[in-house]
């Protein structure tokens, strides 16, 4: 087992001016190199959890926090947010609200200037991330002229420029069209291969199934399940009870199984489904 990087123990949080806890006794450990998907209905506490991991909760968004989150051994509620940002990068849903500058290069360079890094180092990181997200040619464009997917890639690049070990994508694709969403998922897959730890809050189970190793299911501030991605994402009854739409191929196989088809395990993607269903048809 590789080294733990985020340790969350018995975390509860209530927003200021609210009575209902947004998180209730949440505990888990995430290790280096994992790709963790977090799913659950609206109001499950997914975003609250993300903010608690990088210290924005309780440092900027205030409220009552119990329990602890440790990021590489540092308590996230007491370590300055800019210090945690160098371990944990976060990209939110609203692409526009995270971009502050008038072109891509300035956006990527901005946090590095704030960290008072030397010019050569900023240059090295800029060139690396701008090529990683494939936006070299647009580097002087105003965000107004960029597509939603491009804007989110800029947000990812700006987060990665701080060289964090973990990248949190908090519903980063939910306002994008399928092409834009695909760009972000493809990028997340590449980052996983490079060894980055990825935490992805996502509604689109089909896309999440492509890269996630592990799934955490949340509902009303609690963790309902935490385990193997394939096992949880093919649990059709469980997902539907939470109002989550399982992959269509999984649902198809699920109905077939109810009709007596003997699946070894339910498929999660098109390739698996085509193979397992045709095999079963032949054997019948």
């Amino acid at each position, binding site marked *: 087992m590789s080294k733990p990087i985020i340790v969350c123990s018995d975390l509860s949080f209530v927003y200021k001016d609210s009575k209902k806890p947004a998180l209730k006794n949440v505990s888990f450990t995430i290790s280096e190199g994992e790709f963790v998907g977090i799913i659950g209905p609206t109001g499950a506490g997914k975003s609250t959890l993300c903010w608690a991991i*990088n210290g*924005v909760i309780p*440092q*900027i*968004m205030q409220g009552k926090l119990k329990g602890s989150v440790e990021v590489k051994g540092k308590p996230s509620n007491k370590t300055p*947010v*800019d210090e945690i*940002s*160098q371990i944990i990068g*976060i990209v*939110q849903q*609203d692409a*526009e*609200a*995270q*971009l*502050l*500058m*008038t*072109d891509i290069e*300035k956006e990527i*360079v*901005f*946090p*590095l*200037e*704030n*960290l*008072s*890094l*030397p*010019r050569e180092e*900023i*240059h090295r990181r*800029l060139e690396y991330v701008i090529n990683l997200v494939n936006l070299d040619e647009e580097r*002087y*464009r*105003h*965000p*107004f*002229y960029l597509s939603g997917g491009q804007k989110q890639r800029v947000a990812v690049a*700006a987060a990665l420029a*701080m060289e964090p070990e973990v990248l949190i994508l908090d519903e980063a694709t939910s306002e994008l069209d399928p092409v834009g969403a695909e760009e972000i998922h493809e990028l997340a897959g590449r980052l996983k291969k490079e060894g980055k730890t990825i935490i992805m809050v996502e509604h689109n189970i089909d896309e999440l199934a492509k890269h996630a190793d592990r799934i955490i299911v949340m509902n009303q501030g609690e963790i309902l399940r935490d385990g193997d991605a394939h096992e949880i994402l093919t649990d059709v009854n469980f997902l539907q009870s939470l109002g989550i739409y399982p992959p269509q191929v999984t649902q198809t196989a699920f109905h077939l199984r109810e009709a007596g088809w003997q699946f070894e395990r339910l498929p999660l993607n098109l390739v698996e489904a085509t193979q397992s269903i045709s095999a079963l048809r032949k054997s019948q």
Partner: protein
Amino acid sequence: MTIVLEMLETGKAKSPIHSCDPRMKLLWWVCFIIVPILVTNPIILIVFTAFIWILAGVAKIAKKMYRFLIVTYPIMIGFIVLTWPFFYKATPDQAFLFNWSIFHVSVEGLIYATAMGLRIVLALTACTFFVMTTDLMDLASGLGEFLQNKLGISYMYPLMVISSFKFIPELSGDYLTITDSFRSRALDIDSGSFFQRLRKLAPVSIPLIDIMLRRAQRISIALEVKAFSVNNKNRTFFKEHRVQAKDFLLLSTGVLALAISIAAVILDVAKVEMFF
């Protein structure tokens, strides 16, 4: 809105003039703004305007500048021609072409009006050239560097200027969406007197303010996550501005123009009246 954005984008282009230090270009621009204040001599004004157009050719923006100014020149000149009879004092010794009520059109008056128009044209040309060859955001950050390192003033102020150029186009987009959504609910914003319309727009302001407040909160989070601190006095400025020979060359043209103008004032040839 799009025209402002387009000008900003033009300022990011590549050319020998675009790559000059934005702060030197600012000084150059100041020179050319002072010139039309000192000078009304049409010959001097025309020569200087022509000179800026030549520079625009060097900067490869002549076409874009033309497209913008072809609309703006006539408006400015038309404005001057329509208003000068109210301002120009008619004296009996002039060659009158037309006399009616308070309107006294004379040859001298026409020449005077043309000179006034040319002043505006020069100032306008200099401004447009400056904006179209300068990345204004670079200028803001360049000035920010100066303010921080020499005067110890936080980067917060230049940052506010830069960010507003990021957020204003977006807010204007939000405004359009919101008014459209109210139109769709049968709010007739497009008819009635100015004040009636203003009153009808009151409900529109509420979602707009709401969105702005939410944005503001997210921006403050984004600033924190991006490690921005008001108290940081050691911030790096990635873009290096080194003053080169060509910067001095460009600035010297501005200084020379200013010097010629001052000389003209001293020699008493700066005023259009010398032709009367």
